[in-house]
């Protein structure tokens, strides 16, 4: 029971770190970033390769850094030039990027499944209610909680965080107050992509790496973002934890219908509250 609850938190944590990046990017650029799943996947592969050379933690740092840079480039060369176009254009371009990145990874790393070991310092197990539970999984929950706390403190207390919250509501008026919204968007897209890299790397020791690994978690992230309330950071956290649990219990009890359950939950939540669990901007 406790073990299943914790496994749900692990998946919920990974989902949260990925989804909150989507929320940040959507807030600033009004873009639904389909490439986000491939950023997650790329993060896992970069983490894998660097970890095999210099250890897990170096892999984590390099992967987050590389994806942050990639995010800044994505904003500069995709989102910014396309900001005056129909949103559907940008969405299609990000979908194209998803396909290109998947193929690029397939070319570089091959299409066979790869596995990555957790760092030695976290590779033990802990006896919880009579069952062995991997310490690494607890660490993943911890990292997700740290990201959540760090992000809320940043958004609530820092000046840039205030600009991000203002711009998520109304970018034009925020620009009129003298905020450089272009630079702000670049920063935020970079952070969002960096978080996708973080999520990908910490998930690498838990799953088999494949170029297609971004697809299913991307769908679940979209479910999180929509269920939580498009553009809401608090909503994303609540929804990620909820979907994490639902996904996990689904896998345990009705494995054949498991992928469908988060979608059913989304539909039910949207019937109950059409704008999601938490109104955007709250």
């Amino acid at each position, binding site marked *: 029971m406790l073990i299943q609850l914790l496994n749900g938190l692990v998946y919920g944590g990974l989902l949260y770190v990925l989804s909150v990046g989507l929320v940040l990017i959507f807030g600033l650029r009004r873009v639904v970033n389909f490439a986000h799943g491939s950023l997650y996947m790329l993060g896992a592969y970069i983490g894998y390769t660097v970890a095999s050379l210099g250890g897990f933690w170096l892999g984590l740092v390099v992967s987050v850094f590389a994806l942050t840079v990639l995010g800044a480039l994505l904003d500069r060369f995709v989102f910014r030039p396309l900001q005056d176009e129909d949103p559907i254009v940008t969405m299609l371009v990000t979908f194209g990027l998803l396909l290109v990145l998947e193929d690029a990874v397939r070319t570089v790393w091959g299409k066979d499944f790869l596995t990555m070991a957790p760092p030695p310092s976290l590779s033990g197990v802990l006896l919880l209610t009579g069952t062995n539970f991997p310490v690494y999984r607890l660490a993943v929950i911890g990292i997700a909680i740290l990201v959540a706390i760090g992000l809320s403190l940043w958004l609530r207390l820092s000046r840039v965080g205030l600009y991000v919250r203002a711009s998520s509501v109304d970018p034009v*008026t925020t620009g009129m107050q*003298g905020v450089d919204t272009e630079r702000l968007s670049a920063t935020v897209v970079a952070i969002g992509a960096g978080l996708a890299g973080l999520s990908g790397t910490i998930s690498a020791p838990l799953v088999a790496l494949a170029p297609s690994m971004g697809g299913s978690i991307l769908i679940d992230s979209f479910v999180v973002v929509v269920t939580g309330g498009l553009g809401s950071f608090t909503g994303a956290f609540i929804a990620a934890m909820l979907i994490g649990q639902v996904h996990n219990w689904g896998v345990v009890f009705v494995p054949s219908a498991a992928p469908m359950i988060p979608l059913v939950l989304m539909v039910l939540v949207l019937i109950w509250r059409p704008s999601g669990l938490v109104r955007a901007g709250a």
Partner: protein
Amino acid sequence: MPQTANVFPSLSVMENLLVVVGVKRQKQRIAELFDAFPQLAEHRRARAGSLSGGERQQLAFARALMPHPRMLVLDEPTAALAPRKVADAFALIRGLPSFGVSILVVEQRARQSLAVSDRGFILDGGPVALSGTAQELLADARAAELYLGRGDRASAD
């Protein structure tokens, strides 16, 4: 957009003022504005979305005043207000020059805006048809014919 009181509804009153970039001694400036708008000071931690229409307008003015502007251009500041709030808004606008700022108001409610103005310009299809002190315009029969008597009957007093 410019005709609605565009504050950030999800941010607090305080945060709506803090969001303005490049204000010297920002905290001190906010304290000054809170002295001038006691209703805002009272709700400083409240979400701007929970304020009344009049309070939101005060907040929009306070935010505009943050960087010590020399001039404010108000585009139909009363357009989004309930009719009985309009007089309050004009009283608020009348008080703004005490902040050392000149005000240019574009308004449909000609009589009421002239009543709080020093000078007025009446446009007719683009060019300036009449200009003068507010007193002159209010007394001018041509002005009445051009604008005041027509088109704005609902608010002509």
